């Protein structure tokens, strides 16, 4: 899933300066799963914003809505009725959903209520861990199912870096596993350590952000 986290409250209070009718809009998909922008979080942030703004002597009307998926035009369209009644939208969806809303309602100020941070998995309730960085040149087949791009602090294609702690944790944070240690352990368990001796050449980054904004076209699916 795409994960996100609320922006700090003072930042949201600041961006809402001058607005009096605000719509807080969530998305019931990824950001709901990571407890940042689903219906629960929308209904939590709305009264919180009202109270934080009140402390600065500002009274705002806050409406709320949570779309099934904020990254699909059909669902974004559901906001057409309420949009004329507000002067700003705070979206708790990932950056994709926020941009979809901004594109559909260009006349409105659309603000991110969250920072989108990673493609992640819920490791256990309340803990999410990055798993993929959408690099466009997947090497999971060579790295025994562990992503070194998203999970190594240095995104090393040929690791480890030499800083791995004795307990297998990364040198930058004792709570984070060294992914190259994990890769090695899995390779060893599968009797394939020699595969790691092969030097992996630089990745082809041009298939993701480095090749300009990514565009995928499937002629067979186009209108």
């Amino acid at each position, binding site marked *: 899933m795409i994960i996100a986290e609320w922006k700090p*409250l*003072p930042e949201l209070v600041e961006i809402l300066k001058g607005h009096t009718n605000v719509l807080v809009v969530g998305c019931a998909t990824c950001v709901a799963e990571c407890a940042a922008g689903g219906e*629960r979080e929308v209904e*939590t942030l709305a*009264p*919180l914003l009202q*109270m934080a703004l*009140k*402390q600065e002597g500002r009274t705002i009307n806050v409406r709320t809505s949570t779309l099934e998926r904020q990254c699909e035009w059909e669902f974004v369209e559901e906001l057409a009725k309420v949009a004329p009644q507000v002067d700003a939208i705070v979206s708790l969806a990932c950056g994709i959903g926020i941009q979809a809303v901004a594109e559909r309602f260009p006349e409105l100020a659309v603000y991110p209520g969250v920072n989108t941070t990673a493609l992640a998995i819920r490791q256990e309730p309340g803990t999410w861990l990055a798993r993929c960085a959408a690099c466009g040149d997947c090497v999971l087949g060579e790295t025994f199912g562990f992503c070194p791009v998203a999970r190594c602090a240095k995104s090393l294609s040929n690791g480890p870096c030499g800083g791995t702690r004795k307990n297998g944790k990364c040198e930058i944070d004792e709570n984070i596993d060294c992914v190259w240690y994990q890769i090695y352990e899995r390779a060893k368990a599968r009797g394939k350590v020699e595969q790691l001796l092969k030097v992996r050449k630089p990745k082809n980054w041009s298939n993701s952000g480095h090749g300009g904004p990514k565009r995928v076209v499937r002629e067979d699916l186009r209108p």
Partner: protein
Amino acid sequence: MKDANRSVTMPRIVVVYCRNAVSSAAELLEGPYTVKGLNAFFAALPCSSKIEPSYLLKILADGADGVLVVACPEGHCRFMVGNVRAEKRVNYVRSLLDKAKMGAERLTLERGENLTEKDLLSLAQRRVEPLKILGPNPMKGDGK
């Protein structure tokens, strides 16, 4: 029942309590209770874990001066860990209230067992002074 003059100075407290934390007689305590130096509203829940951060914040955004959550003692939850979840949520909302500069003290959690109506009233009563010190909720009057 409502005394308009008193409610100006008397904090309005919403008490949400776990039905299993009280004796059967205390379950009758539902709705507003505005006598004896107390301006409170009581609501029973099937388990304290039924509280959601959004409910607690909405109660405060609607102008209540304080919210008191009453849960069973740890280890005595009919639903295993409901009251532990409730405590975590209360702590989370308290942190949000601090960030909103509303004061974490507007939301508190108490634990108890076989509580009588009198016990519930006295738990609510204990919130009056701290909430008076905190001052009235600035959201008062904005509530729907």
